[in-house]
């Protein structure tokens, strides 16, 4: 167990280094810089002063080394655009994204597995065709278009749901206000991962059903419900767990688009603001945070995987 974790930690550090180097160089190579986002009437001297103040006159590798030295000590720097620590800006926004993604993943996993199993068991029948058709639609319709259509329908035409914002928190929190703001974003984000889980569960289940050990269970005199929901499902879920790990990055990139459509003030909108404002420390901070989330999720998936498949040596 310890060996496994150390190994994983080593891999994660290398991954973080690669990701931060690439991101750092990319944002610095992008045209424009923090100074270009200043007021139009700023004089060349003022611009130069700002560049020097932010240390942008240094060569790029010096700046990266400077950044990484601070970063490993837990100091992600000060945001260019708001003069607050990057950590603080991220931690203000993070809970909203967690809300959005956790709801999405829980709903997608439960509904996805149910529909996938149903589709496999009713293979070739109407239920299977309907589920299959919906999955294809979900996979092929772009999230932003679907988001706009839903806003048109539910917010503008019917007026049932708010079209944007996160609802009020704190003292004047109200449950319906919260949920009503969540419904559309979660729905949109769900369409980016749910069809994958449905299709994967279906094919996994179909494969398992034709295995020899399923025949053995029937030969023992098991009820069909036990054959399907105990013996087959338990095996079919093993690969589904791994696909969930694969879907996490997809979910996060989906979150950026969804947050943008619905003005959901989470990490997704933060990274757009940061990129637009050439807020290098903030972009780097969000990058580091997302990478860590992905690494941790994958670690978690691997641990779950080794628990549910006895053939994988327990770590």
């Amino acid at each position: 167990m310890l060996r496994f974790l150390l190994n994983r930690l080593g891999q994660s550090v290398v991954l973080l280094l690669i990701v931060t180097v690439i991101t750092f160089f990319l944002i610095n190579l992008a045209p424009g810089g923090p100074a270009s986002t200043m007021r139009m009437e700023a004089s060349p001297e003022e611009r130069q002063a700002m560049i020097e103040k932010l240390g942008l006159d240094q060569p790029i590798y010096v700046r990266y080394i400077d950044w990484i030295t601070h970063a490993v000590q837990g100091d992600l720097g000060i945001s260019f655009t708001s003069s607050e620590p990057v950590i603080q800006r991220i931690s203000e926004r993070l809970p909203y994204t967690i809300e959005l993604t956790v709801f999405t993943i829980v709903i997608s996993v439960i509904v996805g597995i149910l529909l996938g199993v149903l589709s496999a068991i009713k293979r070739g029948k109407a239920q299977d065709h309907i589920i299959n058709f919906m999955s294809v639609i979900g996979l092929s319709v772009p999230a932003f278009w679907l988001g706009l259509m839903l806003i048109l329908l539910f917010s503008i035409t019917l007026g049932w749901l708010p079209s944007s914002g996160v609802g009020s928190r704190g003292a004047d929190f109200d449950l319906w206000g919260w949920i009503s703001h969540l419904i559309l974003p979660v729905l949109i984000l769900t369409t980016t991962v749910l069809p994958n889980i449905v299709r994967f569960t279906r094919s996994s289940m179909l494969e398992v059903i034709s295995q020899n050990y399923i025949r053995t269970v029937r030969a023992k005199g098991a009820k069909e419900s036990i054959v399907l929901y105990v013996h087959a499902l338990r095996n079919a879920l093993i690969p589904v767990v791994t696909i969930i790990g694969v879907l996490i990055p997809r979910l996060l990139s989906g979150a950026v688009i969804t947050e943008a459509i619905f003005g959901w003030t989470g990490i997704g909108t933060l990274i757009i603001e940061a990129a637009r404002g050439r807020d290098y420390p903030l972009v780097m901070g969000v990058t580091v945070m997302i990478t860590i989330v992905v690494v941790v999720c994958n670690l978690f998936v691997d641990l779950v995987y080794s628990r549910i498949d006895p053939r994988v040596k327990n770590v």
Partner: protein
Amino acid sequence: MDKILEVKSLVTGYQGKEGFVRAVDGVSFDINRGETICIVGESGSGKSVTSMSIMRLVEYENGRIIDGEIKFNGEELTTKNTEEMRRIRGSKISMIFQEPLTALNPVFTIGKQISEAILFHHSLGKKEAWQRAEELVRLVGISDPQARLKQYPHELSGGMRQRVMIAIALASEPDLLIADEPTTALDVTIEAQILELLRKLRQERNMSILLITHDIGVAAEMADRIIIMYAGKVMEIANTKDIFDQPFHPYSKGLLESVPKMNGERGVPLKSIKGSIPSLNEIPSGCRFSPRCPFATDKCHTEEPLLEMRGDRQVACWHVDYLIENNLLQIEEEGGVSIEF
């Protein structure tokens, strides 16, 4: 004699692209109580489909019994509903399969898989079922039962897993055990051990065994009577000793001649039957064996012989009398059937 199973004119098949194909086409035989009977035939003869029909498992694998009767202890199985059939499977009729490596569910322990088989048919507590599983595991010759029950299938060898399958099959003291090529995937030493175990269990429990094999050598060691199957039909049924003394069917003769001498190298047929078994879409007219039969006549190619009684044996061949009178079915010596009885 007291019959445990009577199969009459069984027809089972699959819906193919070019219509329904009959994998088993009018098979009849019976099994006496306490008897071991072997179905022998090349791969693709319909042996597995026959056994899966008796278990009524074909319908879970896209197959269908379209005609015939299967009487078990006098009760007709083909008309039983799903729930009635479920109560018989694994309790009165049990089955073990060819592939011990894939026959057990990889995610559950041996103990769970055996005790579950007990619980499907008996109202016991989990603990009692587990204890019973432990006895069964000991019975099939697995050492250290307590530890074994906690292991997963992948931690056991093929031979061990087949023993576990036998333990599962015995969970409810069945009247009939169907073993579909139980040793085909195992090496010779393990095969001998498993066959020995089956013989022992049969003696101790007066259980009938339907053993399916493509290896007539295995049948020689195990069977009281042998059923020779070819392309979905029964060619011959006879006592084991009789068939080895003198086969009545050219196909039986071919199978016997393909048996290596016991001291010879195993798995290298000394003389194999020319040609190969027809696919279900192109079953030959007349006698199904006629394209490969050295004695086939015009009649053989056009009219299908029925399985008919001949003394206490049954055979489906137009020319059986002629062939016997002229000593044409005698096994040639170097074909070497030197199996000890």
